[in-house]
């Protein structure tokens, strides 16, 4: 591990964050742009769920995570509390993994 890697990655990571934070701030944007920006989290977080559930080093796989997140979807659908959904997702994944199913 080189200090170059640590420093350059830190600068790049913060540059992304700061650019996004100041680019549109304090400006009056057309309503359609404002609306588009407000929808970014829904689009990216949903993608992140797919990525973290089915993604594995650039491939799609169905493993224990799919069982856990599947259980989480059902619990969220039935309006379970966020903390319950998180613990259920982790517990089902751990159990399925421990049992060696969907390995």
């Amino acid at each position, binding site marked *: *591990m*080189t*200090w*170059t*890697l*640590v420093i*350059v*990655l*830190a600068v*790049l*990571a*913060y*540059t*992304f964050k*700061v*650019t*996004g*934070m*100041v*680019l549109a*701030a*304090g400006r009056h944007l057309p309503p359609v742009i404002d609306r588009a*920006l*407000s*929808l*970014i*989290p*829904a*689009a*990216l*977080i*949903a*993608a*992140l*769920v*797919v*990525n*973290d559930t089915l993604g594995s*080093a650039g*491939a799609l796989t169905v493993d*224990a*995570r799919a069982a*856990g997140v599947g259980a*989480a979807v059902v*619990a*969220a*659908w039935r*309006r379970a*509390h*966020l*903390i319950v*959904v*998180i*613990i259920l*997702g*982790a517990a089902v*994944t751990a*159990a399925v*993994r*421990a049992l060696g199913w969907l390995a």
Partner: protein
Amino acid sequence: MNRSPSVASAGLVLAAAVGVFGIAFGAGAVSAGASLWQACAMSLAVFTGASQFSAVSVVAAGGGTVAALGGATLLAARNGVYALAMSRLLADSALGTRLVAAQITIDESTAMATAAGHGPEARRAFWVTGIGVYVFWNLGTVIGALAGSAVDPGVFGLDAAFPAGFVAMLAPLMSQPAHRAAAIGGAAICLVAIPILPVGLPILCAAVAVVFGVRR
């Protein structure tokens, strides 16, 4: 968030799970040849879990600085897209406040703020979650780097804790057609892109899905 009596307690559960990954990161970084200071500097300054894990795994596999930077940068880029959305939430904040907010603009803080809706509640969710995750990620890194023995978060199913939590955070948005269209579109784009594009890009590409929502 109407189904959550306390943003703070939910944020704390997420932060604790992040802490376990912090331990895994700290231990992994040291075993890949990083010093304690390098591991801690990375978590303090980069503060992007997926990006840091990617950099360490490339180094551990014998890759060079440039190779490690490539993948890690793609994974860090989405925080800039989140920041575009969060900057609207923090529009009334002073520049200094927004410069601090930028550092804690990550998956968890963005998702919690969005699930909390608008205004003061959403801002509180953003700060509580972002600061909580920052503290636990860095504490975990120090512990892991000092202990040196890796914990496997997978044993506790913690790798699924985050997508599970994000599902619950998305749930209240699904009753709104625009958010529902953006979410379904984003998920579909990511699903198609995962086998085709380098890791990190599928999530970035999902931003295009906002066009499905603006028309609603």
